[in-house]
Protein backbone atom coordinates (compact mmCIF):
# COMPACT_ATOMS: atom_id res chain seq x y z
CA UNK A 1 0.00 0.00 0.00
CA UNK A 2 1.16 3.50 -0.80
CA UNK A 3 0.35 6.60 1.22
CA UNK A 4 0.37 10.20 0.08
CA UNK A 5 0.41 12.94 2.72
CA UNK A 6 -0.78 16.37 1.62
CA UNK A 7 1.44 19.10 3.01
CA UNK A 8 0.44 22.69 3.52
CA UNK A 9 3.16 25.30 3.96
CA UNK A 10 1.95 27.67 6.70
CA UNK A 11 3.39 30.45 8.86
CA UNK A 12 4.83 29.28 12.17
CA UNK A 13 1.96 29.18 14.67
CA UNK A 14 3.62 31.84 16.84
CA UNK A 15 3.77 34.30 13.93
CA UNK A 16 2.25 37.70 14.55
CA UNK A 17 -0.29 37.98 11.74
CA UNK A 18 0.02 41.12 9.60
CA UNK A 19 -1.52 42.15 6.32
CA UNK A 20 -0.37 44.41 3.52
CA UNK A 21 -1.26 48.08 3.82
CA UNK A 22 -4.66 47.86 2.10
CA UNK A 23 -5.47 44.64 4.01
CA UNK A 24 -5.89 42.65 0.81
CA UNK A 25 -3.11 40.14 1.34
CA UNK A 26 -1.18 38.39 4.07
CA UNK A 27 2.17 40.06 4.72
CA UNK A 28 4.65 37.20 4.55
CA UNK A 29 7.81 39.25 5.11
CA UNK A 30 10.00 37.74 7.79
CA UNK A 31 7.65 34.80 8.28
CA UNK A 32 9.08 31.43 9.19
CA UNK A 33 7.27 28.66 7.33
CA UNK A 34 6.46 25.29 8.80
CA UNK A 35 4.58 22.13 7.91
CA UNK A 36 0.93 22.61 8.88
CA UNK A 37 0.75 20.96 12.34
CA UNK A 38 -2.04 18.54 11.42
CA UNK A 39 -0.20 17.50 8.25
CA UNK A 40 2.91 16.90 10.33
CA UNK A 41 0.96 14.54 12.59
CA UNK A 42 -0.41 12.76 9.50
CA UNK A 43 3.10 12.36 8.13
CA UNK A 44 4.34 11.07 11.48
CA UNK A 45 1.66 8.36 11.48
CA UNK A 46 2.42 7.42 7.89
CA UNK A 47 6.12 7.03 8.69
CA UNK A 48 5.26 4.95 11.79
CA UNK A 49 3.11 2.66 9.66
CA UNK A 50 5.91 2.28 7.15
CA UNK A 51 8.42 1.44 9.86
CA UNK A 52 5.99 -1.16 11.20
CA UNK A 53 5.88 -2.72 7.74
CA UNK A 54 2.18 -1.95 7.22
CA UNK A 55 2.71 0.18 4.11
CA UNK A 56 5.40 0.29 1.45
CA UNK A 57 5.84 3.90 0.58
CA UNK A 58 5.16 7.38 1.92
CA UNK A 59 5.08 10.36 -0.42
CA UNK A 60 4.28 13.99 0.28
CA UNK A 61 2.78 16.59 -2.03
CA UNK A 62 1.90 20.24 -2.00
CA UNK A 63 0.87 23.03 -4.32
CA UNK A 64 3.09 26.07 -4.14
CA UNK A 65 6.10 28.00 -5.37
CA UNK A 66 9.76 27.19 -4.86
CA UNK A 67 9.63 28.89 -1.45
CA UNK A 68 7.71 25.86 -0.12
CA UNK A 69 10.54 23.43 -0.88
CA UNK A 70 12.24 23.66 2.52
CA UNK A 71 8.97 22.47 4.04
CA UNK A 72 8.87 19.50 1.68
CA UNK A 73 12.50 18.70 2.43
CA UNK A 74 11.69 18.71 6.12
CA UNK A 75 8.95 16.19 5.34
CA UNK A 76 11.57 14.07 3.55
CA UNK A 77 13.85 14.41 6.58
CA UNK A 78 11.04 13.19 8.83
CA UNK A 79 10.81 10.08 6.69
CA UNK A 80 8.83 10.52 3.46
CA UNK A 81 10.36 8.63 0.52
CA UNK A 82 9.71 11.24 -2.12
CA UNK A 83 7.99 14.58 -2.61
CA UNK A 84 5.91 16.30 -5.27
CA UNK A 85 5.51 20.02 -5.67
CA UNK A 86 2.89 21.23 -8.11
CA UNK A 87 4.36 24.48 -9.30
CA UNK A 88 1.44 26.89 -8.87
CA UNK A 89 0.32 29.57 -6.47
CA UNK A 90 -2.55 28.08 -4.46
CA UNK A 91 -5.68 30.13 -5.26
CA UNK A 92 -8.30 28.34 -3.18
CA UNK A 93 -9.06 24.86 -1.89
CA UNK A 94 -10.84 23.80 -5.08
CA UNK A 95 -7.89 24.88 -7.21
CA UNK A 96 -5.43 23.08 -4.92
CA UNK A 97 -7.49 19.87 -4.87
CA UNK A 98 -7.68 19.95 -8.66
CA UNK A 99 -3.92 20.37 -8.98
CA UNK A 100 -3.32 17.39 -6.69
CA UNK A 101 -5.52 14.90 -8.57
CA UNK A 102 -2.79 13.85 -10.98
CA UNK A 103 -0.35 13.02 -8.17
CA UNK A 104 -2.92 11.49 -5.82
CA UNK A 105 -4.75 9.20 -8.20
CA UNK A 106 -2.23 6.35 -7.87
CA UNK A 107 -2.21 6.16 -4.08
CA UNK A 108 -4.19 3.84 -1.83
CA UNK A 109 -4.41 6.20 1.13
CA UNK A 110 -4.25 9.97 1.02
CA UNK A 111 -3.83 11.73 4.36
CA UNK A 112 -4.78 15.37 4.79
CA UNK A 113 -4.79 17.48 7.94
CA UNK A 114 -8.24 18.53 9.13
CA UNK A 115 -7.43 22.13 8.32
CA UNK A 116 -4.49 24.35 7.57
CA UNK A 117 -3.58 26.84 10.27
CA UNK A 118 -3.63 29.75 7.81
CA UNK A 119 -6.95 29.81 5.94
CA UNK A 120 -8.67 27.15 8.07
CA UNK A 121 -10.51 25.84 5.04
CA UNK A 122 -11.00 22.17 5.98
CA UNK A 123 -11.68 21.50 2.32
CA UNK A 124 -8.80 20.21 0.19
CA UNK A 125 -8.95 16.58 1.38
CA UNK A 126 -12.70 16.21 0.88
CA UNK A 127 -12.65 17.93 -2.50
CA UNK A 128 -9.81 15.73 -3.69
CA UNK A 129 -11.76 12.64 -2.63
CA UNK A 130 -14.77 13.79 -4.60
CA UNK A 131 -12.73 14.68 -7.68
CA UNK A 132 -11.09 11.24 -7.68
CA UNK A 133 -14.24 9.43 -6.55
CA UNK A 134 -12.32 8.08 -3.53
CA UNK A 135 -13.96 7.25 -0.25
CA UNK A 136 -13.34 9.74 2.52
CA UNK A 137 -13.43 9.69 6.28
CA UNK A 138 -13.08 12.88 8.27
CA UNK A 139 -12.01 13.72 11.83
CA UNK A 140 -9.79 10.63 11.89
CA UNK A 141 -7.95 10.24 15.18
CA UNK A 142 -6.45 6.81 14.64
CA UNK A 143 -5.32 4.61 11.76
CA UNK A 144 -4.18 1.02 11.83
CA UNK A 145 -3.82 -1.52 9.08
CA UNK A 146 -4.72 -5.02 10.17
CA UNK A 147 -4.34 -7.77 7.60
CA UNK A 148 -4.74 -5.32 4.74
CA UNK A 149 -7.85 -3.77 6.29
CA UNK A 150 -7.92 -0.11 7.25
CA UNK A 151 -9.15 0.28 10.82
CA UNK A 152 -10.03 3.88 11.45
CA UNK A 153 -10.98 5.76 14.60
CA UNK A 154 -12.90 8.91 14.02
CA UNK A 155 -14.53 11.54 16.15
CA UNK A 156 -18.19 12.19 15.53
CA UNK A 157 -20.18 14.99 17.10
CA UNK A 158 -20.84 13.62 20.53
CA UNK A 159 -18.71 10.52 20.46
CA UNK A 160 -16.36 8.36 18.45
CA UNK A 161 -16.49 5.47 16.03
CA UNK A 162 -14.30 2.64 14.87
CA UNK A 163 -14.83 1.78 11.25
CA UNK A 164 -13.26 0.09 8.30
CA UNK A 165 -13.08 1.44 4.82
CA UNK A 166 -11.82 0.14 1.50
CA UNK A 167 -8.97 1.86 -0.32
CA UNK A 168 -8.53 4.11 -2.17
CA UNK A 169 -9.53 6.57 0.49
CA UNK A 170 -8.80 10.10 1.66
CA UNK A 171 -8.47 10.30 5.43
CA UNK A 172 -8.83 13.74 6.92
CA UNK A 173 -6.93 13.52 10.15
CA UNK A 174 -6.85 15.43 13.41
CA UNK A 175 -5.26 15.33 16.83
CA UNK A 176 -4.66 11.81 18.06
CA UNK A 177 -3.57 10.33 14.73
CA UNK A 178 -0.03 10.44 16.10
CA UNK A 179 1.09 11.34 19.60
CA UNK A 180 3.49 14.09 18.68
CA UNK A 181 5.03 15.27 15.44
CA UNK A 182 8.24 13.42 14.80
CA UNK A 183 11.51 15.28 15.17
CA UNK A 184 13.70 14.51 12.16
CA UNK A 185 16.87 12.60 13.02
CA UNK A 186 20.14 13.80 11.53
CA UNK A 187 20.36 10.74 9.35
CA UNK A 188 17.02 11.78 7.90
CA UNK A 189 18.13 15.38 7.45
CA UNK A 190 21.18 14.17 5.54
CA UNK A 191 19.20 11.76 3.39
CA UNK A 192 16.58 14.39 2.54
CA UNK A 193 19.04 15.99 0.13
CA UNK A 194 19.25 12.80 -1.87
CA UNK A 195 15.55 11.93 -2.01
CA UNK A 196 13.56 12.95 -5.09
CA UNK A 197 11.63 16.21 -4.95
CA UNK A 198 9.65 16.21 -8.16
CA UNK A 199 8.39 19.48 -9.54
CA UNK A 200 5.22 19.09 -11.60
CA UNK A 201 3.93 21.84 -13.89
CA UNK A 202 0.52 23.24 -12.99
CA UNK A 203 -2.57 22.03 -14.81
CA UNK A 204 -5.34 24.29 -16.00
CA UNK A 205 -7.57 25.14 -13.11
CA UNK A 206 -9.66 27.85 -11.62
CA UNK A 207 -10.77 29.02 -8.23
CA UNK A 208 -14.30 29.38 -6.93
CA UNK A 209 -13.65 31.84 -4.13
CA UNK A 210 -11.19 34.60 -3.38
CA UNK A 211 -10.30 36.54 -0.28
CA UNK A 212 -11.18 40.17 -0.90
CA UNK A 213 -9.65 41.58 2.27
CA UNK A 214 -8.80 40.88 5.87
CA UNK A 215 -9.73 42.37 9.23
CA UNK A 216 -8.17 42.07 12.63
CA UNK A 217 -10.55 41.19 15.45
CA UNK A 218 -11.68 44.27 17.39
CA UNK A 219 -9.73 44.92 20.59
CA UNK A 220 -11.40 43.53 23.63
CA UNK A 221 -12.90 45.85 26.22
CA UNK A 222 -11.32 45.75 29.67
CA UNK A 223 -12.44 43.08 32.08
CA UNK A 224 -15.12 44.24 34.51
CA UNK A 225 -14.08 43.28 37.98
CA UNK A 226 -16.45 42.41 40.79
CA UNK A 227 -15.46 42.09 44.42
CA UNK A 228 -15.03 38.60 45.82
CA UNK A 229 -17.69 39.20 48.48
CA UNK A 230 -20.26 40.42 45.97
CA UNK A 231 -19.95 37.51 43.57
CA UNK A 232 -23.73 37.28 43.28
CA UNK A 233 -23.69 40.67 41.64
CA UNK A 234 -21.74 39.21 38.74
CA UNK A 235 -24.48 36.66 38.08
CA UNK A 236 -26.95 39.54 37.94
CA UNK A 237 -24.72 41.38 35.46
CA UNK A 238 -24.56 38.30 33.24
CA UNK A 239 -28.32 38.16 33.35
CA UNK A 240 -29.20 41.82 32.88
CA UNK A 241 -26.24 43.39 31.10
CA UNK A 242 -24.60 40.66 29.02
CA UNK A 243 -27.90 38.78 28.65
CA UNK A 244 -26.20 35.44 28.51
CA UNK A 245 -28.00 33.93 31.48
Amino acid at each position, binding site marked *: MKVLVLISNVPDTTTKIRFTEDNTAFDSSGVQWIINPWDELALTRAVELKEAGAIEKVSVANVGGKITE*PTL*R*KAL*AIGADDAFRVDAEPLDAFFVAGQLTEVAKDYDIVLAGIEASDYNGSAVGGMLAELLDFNSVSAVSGLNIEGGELVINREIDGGSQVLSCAAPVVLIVQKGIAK*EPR*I*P*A*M*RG*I*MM*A*RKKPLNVIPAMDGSNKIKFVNYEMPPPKAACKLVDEDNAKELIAMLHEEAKVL
Partner: protein
Amino acid sequence: MNFELTEEQIMIQQAARDYAQRELIQDVLERDEKCIFPERHVKNLSELGFMGMMVDPEYDGAGMDTVSYVLAMEELSKVDASTSVIVSVNNSLVCYGLQKFGSEEQKQKYLKPLARGDYLGAFLLSEPEAGSDATSQRTTAEEMDDHYLLNGTKNWITNAASAQIYLVVAQTHPEKKHRGINAFIVERDSPGISLGPHEDKMGMRSSDTHSVMFTDVKVPKENRIGEDGFGFKFAMQALEAGRIGIAAQALGLASGALERSVAYAKERKAFGTEIVNHQAIAFKLADMDLKVENARNLCLKAAWLKDNGKSFRKESAYAKLYCADIAMEVTTEAVQIHGGYGYVKEYHVERLMREAKLTQIYEGTSEIQKIVISRKLLED
Protein backbone atom coordinates in the same frame (compact mmCIF):
# COMPACT_ATOMS: atom_id res chain seq x y z
CA MET B 1 30.59 37.09 3.62
CA ASN B 2 27.51 35.02 4.24
CA PHE B 3 25.65 35.00 7.54
CA GLU B 4 22.86 32.76 6.34
CA LEU B 5 22.36 29.29 7.72
CA THR B 6 21.78 26.42 5.32
CA GLU B 7 18.48 24.56 5.22
CA GLU B 8 20.05 21.58 7.00
CA GLN B 9 21.50 23.78 9.71
CA ILE B 10 18.08 25.33 10.31
CA MET B 11 16.50 21.88 10.46
CA ILE B 12 19.03 20.72 13.07
CA GLN B 13 18.49 23.88 15.08
CA GLN B 14 14.73 23.28 15.01
CA ALA B 15 15.13 19.61 15.88
CA ALA B 16 17.25 20.49 18.93
CA ARG B 17 14.82 23.23 19.90
CA ASP B 18 11.82 20.95 19.55
CA TYR B 19 13.46 18.25 21.61
CA ALA B 20 14.52 20.66 24.34
CA GLN B 21 11.24 22.57 24.56
CA ARG B 22 9.10 19.47 24.32
CA GLU B 23 11.07 16.79 26.20
CA LEU B 24 13.97 18.12 28.27
CA ILE B 25 11.78 20.75 29.88
CA GLN B 26 9.42 18.14 31.30
CA ASP B 27 11.68 16.72 33.99
CA VAL B 28 14.54 19.19 34.12
CA LEU B 29 13.54 20.63 37.52
CA GLU B 30 13.19 17.24 39.13
CA ARG B 31 16.46 15.98 37.68
CA ASP B 32 18.21 19.10 38.92
CA GLU B 33 16.78 18.78 42.40
CA LYS B 34 17.42 15.06 42.80
CA CYS B 35 20.60 14.76 40.71
CA ILE B 36 19.04 12.26 38.29
CA PHE B 37 21.08 11.34 35.22
CA PRO B 38 19.01 11.98 32.01
CA GLU B 39 19.23 8.41 30.75
CA ARG B 40 16.08 8.54 28.64
CA HIS B 41 17.16 11.78 26.99
CA VAL B 42 20.64 10.53 26.18
CA LYS B 43 19.05 7.53 24.48
CA ASN B 44 16.60 9.71 22.53
CA LEU B 45 19.30 12.19 21.57
CA SER B 46 21.43 9.29 20.35
CA GLU B 47 18.62 8.09 18.13
CA LEU B 48 18.26 11.58 16.72
CA GLY B 49 21.99 11.68 15.99
CA PHE B 50 23.10 14.27 18.55
CA MET B 51 25.74 12.11 20.25
CA GLY B 52 28.03 11.81 17.25
CA MET B 53 27.04 14.85 15.29
CA MET B 54 30.36 15.63 13.64
CA VAL B 55 31.62 12.08 13.18
CA ASP B 56 31.95 10.90 9.60
CA PRO B 57 28.98 8.73 8.52
CA GLU B 58 31.60 6.07 7.66
CA TYR B 59 31.97 5.69 11.44
CA ASP B 60 28.23 5.87 12.13
CA GLY B 61 28.18 9.59 12.88
CA ALA B 62 25.82 12.20 11.47
CA GLY B 63 28.50 13.96 9.45
CA MET B 64 27.31 17.44 10.35
CA ASP B 65 29.49 20.51 10.61
CA THR B 66 30.56 22.39 13.71
CA VAL B 67 28.17 25.26 12.93
CA SER B 68 25.26 22.81 13.25
CA TYR B 69 26.78 21.55 16.48
CA VAL B 70 26.90 25.08 17.91
CA LEU B 71 23.26 25.66 16.93
CA ALA B 72 22.19 22.39 18.54
CA MET B 73 24.21 23.00 21.71
CA GLU B 74 22.67 26.44 22.10
CA GLU B 75 19.12 25.12 21.82
CA LEU B 76 19.64 22.20 24.20
CA SER B 77 21.41 24.43 26.73
CA LYS B 78 18.61 26.99 26.76
CA VAL B 79 16.62 24.38 28.65
CA ASP B 80 19.06 21.94 30.17
CA ALA B 81 22.82 22.42 30.36
CA SER B 82 23.22 19.24 32.41
CA THR B 83 22.15 17.23 29.41
CA SER B 84 24.04 19.37 26.95
CA VAL B 85 27.34 18.87 28.78
CA ILE B 86 26.92 15.12 28.28
CA VAL B 87 26.38 15.80 24.58
CA SER B 88 29.37 18.13 24.51
CA VAL B 89 31.83 15.77 26.18
CA ASN B 90 30.85 12.89 23.93
CA ASN B 91 30.98 14.96 20.75
CA SER B 92 33.76 17.44 21.00
CA LEU B 93 36.18 15.78 23.40
CA VAL B 94 35.74 12.04 22.96
CA CYS B 95 34.44 11.52 19.39
CA TYR B 96 36.44 14.41 17.97
CA GLY B 97 39.67 13.16 19.53
CA LEU B 98 39.15 9.59 18.34
CA GLN B 99 38.10 10.59 14.84
CA LYS B 100 41.08 12.88 14.43
CA PHE B 101 43.82 10.85 16.10
CA GLY B 102 42.55 7.29 16.61
CA SER B 103 43.82 4.33 14.59
CA GLU B 104 41.49 2.59 12.14
CA GLU B 105 41.04 -0.31 14.61
CA GLN B 106 40.25 2.11 17.44
CA LYS B 107 37.69 3.87 15.29
CA GLN B 108 36.00 0.63 14.31
CA LYS B 109 35.96 -0.69 17.84
CA TYR B 110 35.23 2.47 19.86
CA LEU B 111 34.31 5.45 17.72
CA LYS B 112 31.42 3.71 15.98
CA PRO B 113 29.46 2.78 19.13
CA LEU B 114 30.30 6.17 20.65
CA ALA B 115 28.97 8.01 17.60
CA ARG B 116 25.81 5.91 17.57
CA GLY B 117 25.34 6.64 21.25
CA ASP B 118 25.48 2.94 22.19
CA TYR B 119 28.46 3.86 24.33
CA LEU B 120 28.96 7.06 26.23
CA GLY B 121 32.43 8.54 26.59
CA ALA B 122 34.26 10.47 29.32
CA PHE B 123 37.45 12.52 29.13
CA LEU B 124 39.82 12.11 32.05
CA LEU B 125 42.41 14.86 32.28
CA SER B 126 41.92 16.87 35.49
CA GLU B 127 43.58 15.66 38.65
CA PRO B 128 43.30 16.75 42.27
CA GLU B 129 46.47 18.74 41.80
CA ALA B 130 46.46 19.30 38.06
CA GLY B 131 43.43 21.10 36.76
CA SER B 132 44.09 23.60 34.07
CA ASP B 133 47.82 22.91 34.41
CA ALA B 134 47.69 19.73 32.38
CA THR B 135 51.47 19.33 32.24
CA SER B 136 51.68 18.21 35.86
CA GLN B 137 50.02 14.83 35.41
CA ARG B 138 50.47 12.57 38.44
CA THR B 139 48.58 9.62 37.03
CA THR B 140 51.12 7.20 35.64
CA ALA B 141 50.97 4.75 32.77
CA GLU B 142 53.85 2.38 33.20
CA GLU B 143 54.89 0.54 30.06
CA MET B 144 54.90 -3.28 30.50
CA ASP B 145 55.35 -6.06 27.91
CA ASP B 146 52.07 -5.95 26.05
CA HIS B 147 50.19 -3.40 28.12
CA TYR B 148 50.35 -0.25 30.21
CA LEU B 149 49.65 -0.18 33.92
CA LEU B 150 47.58 2.82 35.06
CA ASN B 151 47.77 4.24 38.57
CA GLY B 152 46.45 7.49 39.96
CA THR B 153 43.35 9.62 40.48
CA LYS B 154 41.33 11.81 38.10
CA ASN B 155 38.99 14.52 39.31
CA TRP B 156 35.73 16.21 38.21
CA ILE B 157 34.94 13.61 35.60
CA THR B 158 31.71 14.24 33.71
CA ASN B 159 29.89 10.98 32.78
CA ALA B 160 32.22 9.05 35.09
CA ALA B 161 29.56 6.62 36.25
CA SER B 162 27.56 6.47 33.04
CA ALA B 163 30.33 6.15 30.46
CA GLN B 164 31.52 2.86 29.02
CA ILE B 165 34.62 4.38 27.45
CA TYR B 166 37.21 6.57 29.13
CA LEU B 167 39.86 8.60 27.37
CA VAL B 168 42.59 8.84 30.04
CA VAL B 169 45.63 11.09 29.99
CA ALA B 170 48.59 9.82 32.01
CA GLN B 171 52.36 10.23 32.39
CA THR B 172 54.56 7.48 30.96
CA HIS B 173 57.97 9.18 30.94
CA PRO B 174 58.07 11.70 33.83
CA GLU B 175 61.57 12.78 32.88
CA LYS B 176 60.26 14.02 29.52
CA LYS B 177 57.65 16.17 31.28
CA HIS B 178 54.72 16.92 28.98
CA ARG B 179 56.41 15.14 26.09
CA GLY B 180 56.16 11.95 28.11
CA ILE B 181 52.39 12.04 28.43
CA ASN B 182 50.09 9.53 26.67
CA ALA B 183 46.36 9.23 26.11
CA PHE B 184 44.58 5.89 26.32
CA ILE B 185 41.21 4.37 25.55
CA VAL B 186 40.20 2.55 28.72
CA GLU B 187 37.13 0.39 29.03
CA ARG B 188 35.17 1.41 32.08
CA ASP B 189 34.72 -2.15 33.34
CA SER B 190 38.46 -2.90 33.41
CA PRO B 191 39.53 -4.32 36.80
CA GLY B 192 41.09 -1.77 39.15
CA ILE B 193 38.83 1.22 38.39
CA SER B 194 36.82 2.66 41.24
CA LEU B 195 34.73 5.80 41.60
CA GLY B 196 34.66 8.40 44.31
CA PRO B 197 31.30 9.61 45.61
CA HIS B 198 28.89 11.53 43.42
CA GLU B 199 29.89 15.20 43.60
CA ASP B 200 27.10 17.31 45.06
CA LYS B 201 27.38 20.26 42.69
CA MET B 202 25.90 23.74 42.69
CA GLY B 203 24.58 23.32 39.15
CA MET B 204 24.65 20.85 36.26
CA ARG B 205 23.24 18.53 38.89
CA SER B 206 21.70 16.09 36.49
CA SER B 207 25.08 15.18 34.97
CA ASP B 208 27.12 12.74 37.01
CA THR B 209 30.52 13.85 38.21
CA HIS B 210 32.96 11.75 40.21
CA SER B 211 36.61 11.29 40.83
CA VAL B 212 38.03 8.10 39.31
CA MET B 213 40.77 6.00 40.91
CA PHE B 214 43.03 3.68 38.92
CA THR B 215 44.86 0.90 40.73
CA ASP B 216 47.05 -1.27 38.50
CA VAL B 217 44.61 -1.02 35.63
CA LYS B 218 45.87 -2.91 32.58
CA VAL B 219 45.43 -1.14 29.28
CA PRO B 220 46.33 -2.98 26.05
CA LYS B 221 49.07 -1.27 24.07
CA GLU B 222 46.86 -0.92 21.01
CA ASN B 223 44.66 1.40 23.09
CA ARG B 224 47.25 4.14 23.22
CA ILE B 225 46.22 7.04 21.01
CA GLY B 226 48.94 8.13 18.56
CA GLU B 227 52.71 7.80 18.96
CA ASP B 228 54.38 7.41 22.34
CA GLY B 229 54.35 10.83 24.02
CA PHE B 230 51.50 12.26 21.94
CA GLY B 231 49.14 12.55 24.93
CA PHE B 232 49.64 16.18 25.80
CA LYS B 233 49.16 17.37 22.25
CA PHE B 234 46.11 15.13 22.01
CA ALA B 235 44.60 16.64 25.13
CA MET B 236 45.27 20.20 24.02
CA GLN B 237 43.75 19.66 20.57
CA ALA B 238 40.68 17.96 22.02
CA LEU B 239 40.23 20.79 24.50
CA GLU B 240 40.55 23.34 21.72
CA ALA B 241 37.58 21.75 19.96
CA GLY B 242 35.80 21.19 23.27
CA ARG B 243 35.90 24.91 24.00
CA ILE B 244 33.52 25.53 21.12
CA GLY B 245 31.01 23.14 22.64
CA ILE B 246 31.20 24.74 26.08
CA ALA B 247 31.08 28.22 24.54
CA ALA B 248 27.87 27.23 22.75
CA GLN B 249 26.54 25.83 26.00
CA ALA B 250 27.21 29.13 27.77
CA LEU B 251 25.60 30.94 24.85
CA GLY B 252 22.50 28.78 25.25
CA LEU B 253 22.32 29.48 28.98
CA ALA B 254 22.42 33.20 28.21
CA SER B 255 19.96 33.14 25.32
CA GLY B 256 17.62 30.86 27.26
CA ALA B 257 17.67 33.31 30.18
CA LEU B 258 17.06 36.17 27.75
CA GLU B 259 14.07 34.44 26.14
CA ARG B 260 12.55 33.78 29.54
CA SER B 261 13.19 37.35 30.64
CA VAL B 262 11.56 38.85 27.56
CA ALA B 263 8.49 36.65 27.96
CA TYR B 264 8.24 37.44 31.66
CA ALA B 265 8.75 41.19 31.24
CA LYS B 266 5.98 41.32 28.65
CA GLU B 267 3.54 39.66 31.03
CA ARG B 268 4.46 40.92 34.46
CA LYS B 269 2.93 44.22 35.46
CA ALA B 270 4.17 46.84 37.89
CA PHE B 271 2.93 50.39 38.41
CA GLY B 272 0.05 49.77 36.03
CA THR B 273 1.97 48.54 33.01
CA GLU B 274 3.99 45.56 31.82
CA ILE B 275 7.49 45.93 33.23
CA VAL B 276 8.93 45.81 29.73
CA ASN B 277 7.54 49.33 29.36
CA HIS B 278 9.84 50.54 32.13
CA GLN B 279 13.08 51.71 30.64
CA ALA B 280 15.09 50.18 33.46
CA ILE B 281 13.95 46.77 32.28
CA ALA B 282 13.92 47.49 28.55
CA PHE B 283 17.53 48.71 28.61
CA LYS B 284 18.60 45.71 30.66
CA LEU B 285 17.06 43.48 28.01
CA ALA B 286 18.80 45.43 25.25
CA ASP B 287 22.18 44.92 26.95
CA MET B 288 21.49 41.21 27.40
CA ASP B 289 20.42 40.87 23.78
CA LEU B 290 23.59 42.53 22.50
CA LYS B 291 25.78 40.29 24.64
CA VAL B 292 23.98 37.19 23.39
CA GLU B 293 24.38 38.31 19.79
CA ASN B 294 28.11 38.94 20.26
CA ALA B 295 28.49 35.58 21.95
CA ARG B 296 26.70 33.79 19.13
CA ASN B 297 28.86 35.43 16.51
CA LEU B 298 32.05 34.40 18.32
CA CYS B 299 30.85 30.81 18.57
CA LEU B 300 29.81 30.61 14.97
CA LYS B 301 33.05 32.13 13.75
CA ALA B 302 35.15 29.64 15.71
CA ALA B 303 32.97 26.83 14.34
CA TRP B 304 33.27 28.16 10.81
CA LEU B 305 37.06 28.31 11.06
CA LYS B 306 37.17 24.73 12.31
CA ASP B 307 34.84 23.56 9.53
CA ASN B 308 37.04 25.23 6.95
CA GLY B 309 40.24 23.67 8.23
CA LYS B 310 41.67 26.93 9.54
CA SER B 311 43.33 27.51 12.90
CA PHE B 312 40.76 28.27 15.59
CA ARG B 313 42.84 28.20 18.75
CA LYS B 314 42.45 31.85 19.61
CA GLU B 315 38.89 32.13 18.35
CA SER B 316 37.67 29.15 20.37
CA ALA B 317 39.28 30.76 23.42
CA TYR B 318 37.55 34.06 22.63
CA ALA B 319 34.26 32.25 22.36
CA LYS B 320 34.70 30.22 25.53
CA LEU B 321 35.85 33.23 27.57
CA TYR B 322 33.24 35.67 26.33
CA CYS B 323 30.26 33.30 26.26
CA ALA B 324 30.96 32.03 29.78
CA ASP B 325 31.38 35.52 31.19
CA ILE B 326 28.23 36.91 29.56
CA ALA B 327 26.31 33.76 30.51
CA MET B 328 27.03 34.64 34.12
CA GLU B 329 26.04 38.27 33.56
CA VAL B 330 22.91 37.60 31.54
CA THR B 331 21.57 34.85 33.79
CA THR B 332 22.15 37.05 36.84
CA GLU B 333 20.24 39.90 35.20
CA ALA B 334 17.50 37.45 34.27
CA VAL B 335 17.06 36.56 37.93
CA GLN B 336 16.96 40.28 38.74
CA ILE B 337 14.25 40.93 36.13
CA HIS B 338 12.19 38.07 37.54
CA GLY B 339 12.50 39.51 41.05
CA GLY B 340 11.31 37.12 43.73
CA TYR B 341 10.07 34.68 41.10
CA GLY B 342 13.59 34.52 39.72
CA TYR B 343 14.84 33.21 43.03
CA VAL B 344 12.53 30.19 43.07
CA LYS B 345 13.17 27.07 41.04
CA GLU B 346 9.89 27.02 39.12
CA TYR B 347 10.99 29.91 36.92
CA HIS B 348 14.22 28.20 35.82
CA VAL B 349 16.45 31.29 35.72
CA GLU B 350 18.13 30.64 39.07
CA ARG B 351 19.13 27.23 37.73
CA LEU B 352 20.51 28.78 34.54
CA MET B 353 22.54 31.12 36.75
CA ARG B 354 23.93 28.24 38.82
CA GLU B 355 24.82 26.38 35.65
CA ALA B 356 26.39 29.42 33.98
CA LYS B 357 28.96 29.62 36.79
CA LEU B 358 30.50 26.32 35.78
CA THR B 359 31.08 27.45 32.20
CA GLN B 360 33.62 29.95 33.56
CA ILE B 361 35.45 27.13 35.30
CA TYR B 362 35.47 23.87 33.37
CA GLU B 363 37.31 22.93 30.19
CA GLY B 364 39.74 25.75 30.91
CA THR B 365 38.86 28.56 33.30
CA SER B 366 38.30 32.08 32.02
CA GLU B 367 41.80 32.88 33.20
CA ILE B 368 43.27 30.03 31.16
CA GLN B 369 41.47 31.33 28.08
CA LYS B 370 43.21 34.65 28.59
CA ILE B 371 46.55 32.84 28.69
CA VAL B 372 45.70 31.15 25.37
CA ILE B 373 44.59 34.42 23.81
CA SER B 374 47.52 36.48 25.06
CA ARG B 375 50.11 33.88 24.08
CA LYS B 376 48.69 33.66 20.58
CA LEU B 377 48.45 37.43 20.36
CA LEU B 378 52.02 37.97 21.46
CA GLU B 379 53.57 35.22 19.35
CA ASP B 380 52.15 36.75 16.14
